[in-house]
């Protein structure tokens, strides 16, 4: 075990996966000589010359070229420098990456990873703090992963790179250097599409992903109730059985989502619970989310991001419902 930040853990995953499979290549803005603006790809160019590419500043072509590379037999990992710039590549993700296998009935496939630093909390400029995972989770054929801790990030990135399907890997930039934890040195992959129970409990289920696991765990820790905390890991496909199993036990659910309130991942979780777990529910599903407004700039960002206090209040409301 080595104590690592998420940035270091992601970098370690890259080194292991690139050594393990020579088809893995890295492309994106400033990912080579500079090692990425957050240093996630630091040192890769030196270790793997000819497999790490500093591209021109063009998100559409970064993702579009990765589609062609993947179809031609490589395992490209493309970096989009910030969440807000990923929308420029939306067409390539939706129209091509996500449906190439289907539209060619399996003749061509698209095993690529598109990584992007995601979500807010670091007082960044405009368009650098977006949480639009629901927009991507809505696309059939795309796997959407949001790791929550360093050791999770390492295993999930390895799985994403090995996946035969296109994976959007959204890294919570607030967690990049905020948390350090022991990470296994050897290579390991965490299965995609499976959530994990971070903390067992019996009174209420708190569901979070990415950066929101931090306030979820804080609130659970401070609560007088026994909270079961679930980390989704993969936002889409959603691990519904894991959520159902927990709520069948607790009867109450609080979803913590950094993105806007309506039409989000939380809405899907609430709908799944209504469809499949209604008889186990003792209270309405609580959603702790951002309001339906564009992400505010730094001075008002605190009002936007769900806090441990708000999660705590939602737990109280869920428990108080009779």
């Amino acid at each position, binding site marked *: 075990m080595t104590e690592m930040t998420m940035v270091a853990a992601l970098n370690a995953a890259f080194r292991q996966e690139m050594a393990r499979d020579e088809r893995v290549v890295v492309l994106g803005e400033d990912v080579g000589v500079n090692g990425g603006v957050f240093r996630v790809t630091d040192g890769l160019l030196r270790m793997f010359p000819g497999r790490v590419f500093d*591209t021109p500043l063009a998100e*559409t072509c970064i993702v579009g*070229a990765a589609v062609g590379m993947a*179809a031609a037999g490589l395992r490209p990992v493309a970096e989009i420098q910030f969440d807000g710039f990923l929308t420029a590549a939306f067409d390539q993700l939706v129209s091509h990456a996500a449906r190439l296998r*289907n539209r060619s*009935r399996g*003749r061509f496939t698209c095993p690529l990873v598109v990584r992007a630093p995601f979500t807010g909390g670091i007082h960044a400029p405009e368009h650098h703090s977006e949480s639009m995972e629901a927009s991507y989770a809505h696309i059939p054929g795309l796997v959407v992963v949001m790791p929550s801790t360093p050791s999770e990030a390492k295993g999930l990135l390895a799985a994403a790179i090995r996946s035969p399907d296109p994976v959007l890997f959204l890294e919570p930039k607030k967690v990049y250097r905020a948390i350090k934890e022991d990470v296994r040195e050897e290579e390991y992959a965490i299965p995609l599409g499976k959530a994990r129970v971070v903390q067992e409990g019996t009174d209420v289920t708190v569901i979070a992903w990415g950066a929101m696991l931090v306030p979820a765990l804080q609130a659970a820790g401070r609560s007088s109730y026994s909270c079961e905390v679930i980390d989704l890991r993969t936002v889409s496909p959603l691990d519904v059985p894991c959520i159902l199993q927990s709520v069948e036990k607790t009867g109450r659910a609080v979803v913590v989502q950094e993105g806007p309130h309506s039409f989000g991942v939380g809405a899907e979780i609430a709908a799944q619970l209504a469809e499949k777990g209604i008889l186990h529910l003792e209270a309405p599903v609580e959603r702790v989310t951002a309001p339906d407004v564009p992400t505010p700039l730094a001075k008002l960002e605190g009002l936007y991001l769900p806090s441990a206090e708000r999660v705590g209040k939602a737990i109280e409301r869920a428990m108080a419902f009779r």
Partner: protein
Amino acid sequence: MPRAVLGTFAVEWLQVLDERGKADPGLLPPLGEREVKDLYELMAISRVFDEQCLTLQREGRLGTYAAVRGQEAAQVGSAYALQQQDWLFPSFRENAALIARHQPLEMLMAYWAGDERGQQVPASLNNFPVAIPVGTQAPHAVGAAWAFQIRKEKAAALVYFGDGATSKGDVLEAMNFAGVFKLPVVFFCQNNQWAISLPAGKQTAAQTLAQKAIAFGFPGIRVDGNDVFAVYLATHDALERARSGEGPTFIEAFTYRVEHHTTSDDSSRYRAKAEVDLWRAKDPLLRLEAWMEGKGFLDKAYRETVWAEARKRVQEAVEKMEQLPPPKPGDIFDYVFAQLPPHLQEQKASLLRELGGQGGQA
């Protein structure tokens, strides 16, 4: 010296066969009689295929269809220059190129009849599925070319698009990447002068589309797109350059979309019949036939055999396409991911239950 000229450029025009079918002997590509006949036969079958598809569409046996007529020389001449290991990235009006590249005719028809199996091309053919969103295939060609370069393979990517696509960021970004990384890709732009109702003159203020390559640091050439020899020569040379590590080329094949944009379009709303008639007369097949007659390559018997064979093969393809068993309902789920995830297993089972006996086998 406060002011100076930092660069000047010229755009080359290439024509081998003129409109009457007279060739410039110094420019003729090194093609033997058999190869010229290949080109002719491929153009003929493309013409018959195109006409048959328009008929099938009118009869309700095919969906919306984008006709190729008038662009056979541009498509056949370019695709004929490909080698087995090269990859072809088509837009939605590339049936002649795909026919020249051995795509089974019934598969081409099946796709336009609304069946994804039409894009399940045989593993031996590196023909990418057609791109419907305009120009979005250019970055894919760049990515594939990049893969060849990384693996040090002597292969090239040939990407087709039209004049309209040169306004898309995808194409311009792809050209920029190709220039920066010196990738083995050939950008083959068929300037058929109409993007649905927008004439090429309103698509850009540039005099030619070929000159766009110069800004990205690689050669661009305009060729007579109705001259199969000029197209073949330019594409052959560009692919050779690509495979030998000399980087990308942009070819503007100047041609004309004789038919409507698709079967859903009425081009009389935006262009004059006289213009269409003028270009109908510049038929690339007539030009090649005139040259072949002069060379003694095209007697009556051969010509009749070619067209009869083309009609026979196209008819057989129609029968094959229409005899294809209907696609299975489960197919809409089975290729979304490599393995069917639980939520899709559930949705598939639910659909098949709803269909009951009518669902056929999953």
